[in-house]
């Protein structure tokens, strides 16, 4: 899972990374053929990496790795194209990168020391460490580096490699945190040595270009030859991760709406930290916790196996206890209740007969999987639909849509009808294009790939057929219409001769209907322009245009539009339905907010049980606030004077439930090794894990 996330992030940054690679490798070769500059500037890349500084470790390590590697990152066509102009040079070029962090560089001495040590420690073949040769050099003396570099170059010469010199790359990871005086001197020294050692600087900027202008004086700035690189915005990263991980991934686990909301809120509101998001996901709230919770605390997790079939071994493992658990799940109860009306006997069997249940389970689980896959598919379609219209006003980010879908509010929201209305408003040629693209989208997805047997056919295939038929009818209709229009336009020849001619030739060649229609529209527009001599609004144009279409075709067209509309809404309704309505969804979706976990993360070493409990209660209370507003004030009054007895009763019930939930939560945490009881202090537990687990 972590690997997957890293992969996503790397993909997102590939273009920038390869640009940086090019920059570093051509930094010194480029200068030779440029026009004469009055003095040599130090090539400097400014990497705008976003404000989530803790995330940058990974990023800059990646960059260092990429720079040091002999081949540029990625091997896609784009990179090759970009590399074209530097290929002759970058072939033999070699560069070595070190990362300097502000914590290593409190003063000039330590900065130099850190840099030199890192370079010497790279272990490059042929380089001699001057510090080991018995010379009494100090370890922050630039001469050390110079000597080392000379030996490196000599080694290269001896090896018969080309004259291209290795470049030394210094990455200043967190520019803002550096001491600016130190940095000034450091840069000045580097540029002094530039005639002997080809340095390239890469600076990681978290804020904006202003930081560098504030931090460095003119004399230093004028020695830098900067180039800016913009890393992918972290919110984009987040969206990509969610998209990849939750919507399309094949992992056996989904995150429910509440934890996801919390995760996203944390991200948007507080830190923009993808790393934090991941580690939150991984550690505190969801991943480990869920996995552990899931696999230890929930016996049903054995059903998570994707390849569950009737013959699967997992089913043999099921015991009486499992069945009881299963039957206690709310969704299962719903399912059974639904069955009750249709088929009472089956429902009874489900409840009473274990054997029957075992047979049913694989089907249910499979249905769930299929639901998930088609959900991803249709979600893509929704996204496609949204991106089709350039209404920036109502655009929602993918994660928001996903979140709505999880919450179950998506299908009832005004968003989808709005999109549908937009679709309805399309004119005919756009509609055609739209349907084509739609079909394309469906065909491209893996779900709709041609199946080997009909047995594997799934819902999506059926949808594909529907869309296809719509497309076919649509194009047929439009063909008709265009032929009609040819004839009709011939009637009005005198109005728009050349347009009509072109439309005829087009028709003769049998080109695509959409262009044809466009031509036809042009003609009719001409007609009306002549007739009325006034400006036409688009809508008026459209109505008149449709009036031109023969009656039968018009009817068919509107019918078709209607059908499209219905298909879309049906698709959304069936597939974007909230997961809670699926039976057994608890197996995959995990949607209990780990309040305790959240509090736990904020705690010190010893946790006072009572405080913890109170805080837990408070949060639960607050969570209920929007739902039933009355409870809270009543509670307060009940606490003071005990006025309303009925309310006090619910209050009490609530308290009991809270306590029960709290205790079970504590037990789980203890079971998984997050806390342990201690005898050092009464009513306290000890915290056992720290940091971003």
């Amino acid at each position: 899972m972590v690997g997957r996330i890293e992969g996503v992030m790397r993909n997102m940054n590939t273009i920038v990374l390869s640009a940086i690679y090019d920059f570093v490798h051509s930094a010194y070769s480029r200068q030779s053929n440029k026009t004469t500059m009055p003095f040599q500037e130090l090539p400097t890349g400014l990497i705008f990496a976003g404000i989530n500084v803790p995330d940058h470790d990974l990023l800059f390590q990646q960059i260092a790795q990429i720079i040091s590697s002999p081949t540029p990152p990625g091997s896609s066509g784009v990179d090759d194209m970009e590399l074209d102009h530097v290929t002759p040079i970058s072939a033999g070029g070699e560069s070595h990168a070190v990362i300097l962090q502000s914590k290593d560089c409190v003063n000039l001495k330590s900065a130099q020391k850190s840099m030199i040590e890192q370079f010497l420690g790279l272990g490059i073949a042929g380089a001699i460490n001057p510090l080991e040769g018995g010379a009494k050099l100090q370890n922050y003396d630039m001469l050390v580096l110079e000597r080392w570099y000379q030996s490196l170059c000599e080694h290269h010469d001896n090896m018969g490699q080309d004259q291209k010199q290795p470049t030394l790359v210094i990455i200043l990871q967190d520019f803002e945190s550096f001491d600016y005086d130190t940095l000034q001197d450091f840069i000045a020294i580097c540029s002094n040595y530039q005639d002997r050692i080809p340095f390239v600087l890469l600076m990681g900027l978290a804020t904006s270009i202003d930081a560098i202008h504030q931090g460095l004086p003119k004399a230093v700035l004028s020695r830098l030859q900067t180039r800016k690189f913009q890393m992918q915005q972290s919110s984009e990263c987040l969206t990509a991760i969610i998209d990849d991980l939750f919507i399309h991934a094949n992992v056996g686990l989904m995150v429910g709406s509440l934890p996801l909301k919390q995760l996203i809120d944390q991200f948007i509101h507080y830190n923009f930290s993808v790393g934090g998001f991941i580690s939150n996901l991984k550690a505190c709230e969801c991943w480990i916790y869920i996995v552990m919770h899931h696999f230890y605390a929930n016996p049903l997790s054995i059903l998570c196996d994707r390849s569950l079939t009737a013959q699967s071994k997992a089913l043999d493992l099921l015991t009486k206890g499992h069945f009881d658990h299963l039957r206690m799940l709310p969704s299962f109860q719903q399912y059974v209740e639904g069955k009750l009306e249709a088929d009472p006997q089956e429902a009874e069997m489900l409840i009473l007969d274990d054997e029957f249940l075992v047979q049913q389970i694989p089907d249910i689980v499979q249905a769930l999987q299929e639901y998930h896959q088609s959900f991803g598919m249709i979600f893509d379609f929704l996204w496609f639909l949204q991106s089709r219209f350039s209404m920036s006003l109502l655009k929602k980010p993918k994660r928001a849509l996903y979140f709505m879908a999880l919450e179950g509010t998506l299908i009832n929201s005004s968003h989808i009808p709005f999109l549908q209305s937009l679709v309805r408003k399309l004119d005919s040629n756009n509609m055609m294009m739209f349907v084509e693209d739609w079909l394309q989208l469906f065909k491209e997805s893996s779900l709709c790939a041609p199946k080997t047997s009909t047995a594997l056919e799934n819902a999506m295939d059926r949808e594909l057929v529907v869309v296809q038929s719509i497309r076919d009818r649509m194009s047929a209709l439009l063909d008709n219409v265009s032929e009609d229009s040819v004839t009709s336009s011939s009637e009005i020849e005198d109005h728009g001769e050349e347009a009509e001619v072109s439309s005829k030739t087009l028709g003769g060649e049998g080109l695509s209907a959409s262009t044809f229609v466009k031509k036809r529209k042009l003609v009719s527009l001409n007609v009306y322009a002549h007739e009325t001599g006034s400006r036409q609004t688009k809508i008026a144009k459209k109505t008149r245009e449709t009036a031109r279409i023969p009656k039968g075709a018009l009817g068919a067209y509107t019918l078709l539009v209607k059908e499209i509309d219905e298909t879309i809404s049906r698709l959304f309704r069936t597939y974007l339905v909230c997961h809670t309505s699926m039976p057994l969804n608890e197996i995959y979706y995990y949607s209990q907010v780990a309040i305790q976990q959240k509090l736990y993360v904020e705690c010190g070493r010893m946790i006072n049980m009572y405080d913890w409990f109170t805080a837990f209660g408070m949060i639960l209370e607050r969570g209920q606030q929007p739902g039933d507003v009355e409870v809270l004030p009543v509670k307060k009054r009940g606490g003071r004077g005990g006025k309303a007895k009925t309310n006090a009763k619910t209050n009490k019930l609530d308290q009991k439930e809270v306590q029960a939930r709290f205790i079970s939560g504590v037990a789980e945490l203890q079971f998984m090794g997050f806390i342990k009881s201690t005898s050092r202090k009464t009513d306290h537990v000890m915290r056992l894990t720290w940091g971003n687990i």
Partner: protein
Amino acid sequence: MATSPQQQQLHGAFPGRVKQIDQILGFMGKPLAPTPPSLLINGNSSLGKTAVIKATLSAMLGQSEPERRRPSRYAFLDCVECHTPRLIFEHAIYQLRNPPPTQEKGPTLSSIGAGKKEAAEGTLTGFRKRKRVTHSPLEWNKCDNVNEFIEWCRKICDTQDDETDNTSSSGNQSSQSPGHHHYQRPSTSSKHQNETRYLVLDRAERLRDTAPTLIPVLMRLQELTGRNICVILITTIVWEKFRSKTGGYEPIVLNFPQYTKAETVAILRKDLPEDEDLDMFMRFVDLVYDVFQRNCKDLNEIRHLVALLFPLYIKPVKEGKIQKHEGLKLHRHIQAYFVEAMDKLYLREISSTEWSDRTLSAASGSLISSGHISGAPGSDRTLITALDVQNTFDLPYYTKFLLIASFLASYNPPRLDMRYFAKVSNQGGKMTKRSKIAAAKKHGHDNMGSKLRQQLLGPKPFPIERMLAIFYSILDEEVEENVNVHTQIASLVSLRMLQRVTPMDKLDSIKCKCNVSYETIKSLAKSTKFEIDKYLYDFS
């Protein structure tokens, strides 16, 4: 001393510095002649101080010999690089005991001429590489304090040069009469032994911070060692600022004055790109000088601008749109770029490569589309950069509010917090009354003493608690107080958007200042749809 070929070459290489070169040569005298104990060379930056000294020393001291196996006669140290006394000592000893670094490129003087002004800031560039082949095991001598250093200086002056020296001493050194023994130590037969050694310290103003006690010692180095050593300090500040205690020796001060226009143009003339028309270039140089000299005295900057703007200037000529002699047209053509260069390039908002990439591509586009040049190419490019910067700066939602809150806390007087941030509740009436009075009082006061506006005074430190209170007040939604808010404060401090004014070891009652400009805050507030102007007191 009649002008030697070296001297003439030096004069040619440094227009406008003839007098200074002659002065320095005068101080140096013959190789064996005693020199003044110390020289101080001062002048503004990029006036050729370093370059002149370097070139003069390397031209006069031994560079003319084809094979130089004897130790260098001078050590050239940069005080930024040598930031501890020990580094200064050791580097000086190393340089004086070893032959000077050779240069791979052709005859030294011509290369100096070509790359003359590069050295103005102390960088001798042109990508010359030090000779790599002479890679003997490094002979490095430890030297920790001044005493040892003086010992070393004596030793260096007394040691004989290598025997190869005797064979190769056929250059202009041979003309010297042997046996000038000025000092008591009986010397051996080597004729170079008592030649003056020079210790050059570039950017010597740094010495005052790194080794303040060293300055008097260096001034008296000749006296202390009893050898013929001359210390040359190169600095941008005047000698008066070096004096710490009385009793130190005063160096001879040599001032490098500003270049005049004629001198500047003569220097820039050397920058003429290959196969370009000299007349046109000189006209252009003249133009640039007139436009920019009021803002920019720095020769390097002017050279920088010339190098980057000249291709644009000659572009229409090359494309055949404008004739060479049509000076006025060319002038109009380049005007638009001047404006932008003043703004962006000079401030290094965009770097030289970005500039040349962009102008060449953009200008060609605009030239093709319209033969007429207006300010248009400049303006949309500016737009692009503004967009770039805007995009890069994005903060999490709450962090934006934290920053806004700290801005408010820094610029609003605390006593008005009630008026601005108290939630309008059941007690609202009373509040408003009081605040009204306060406001009225304030207002009257303002009209008289608005000179003390906080906006003009800069940000005021505020306690974190106050900022948090404002933060929770300006947020629309209820937010629970948690760790994240505090981590965000810490990260804002590390990004230097907040400045912590209390020392790091004081953990509670932290005070900060907001270190962000009003413009930034305004754009932040706009992005969060927060009306900042409503909450700012006495701001415009």
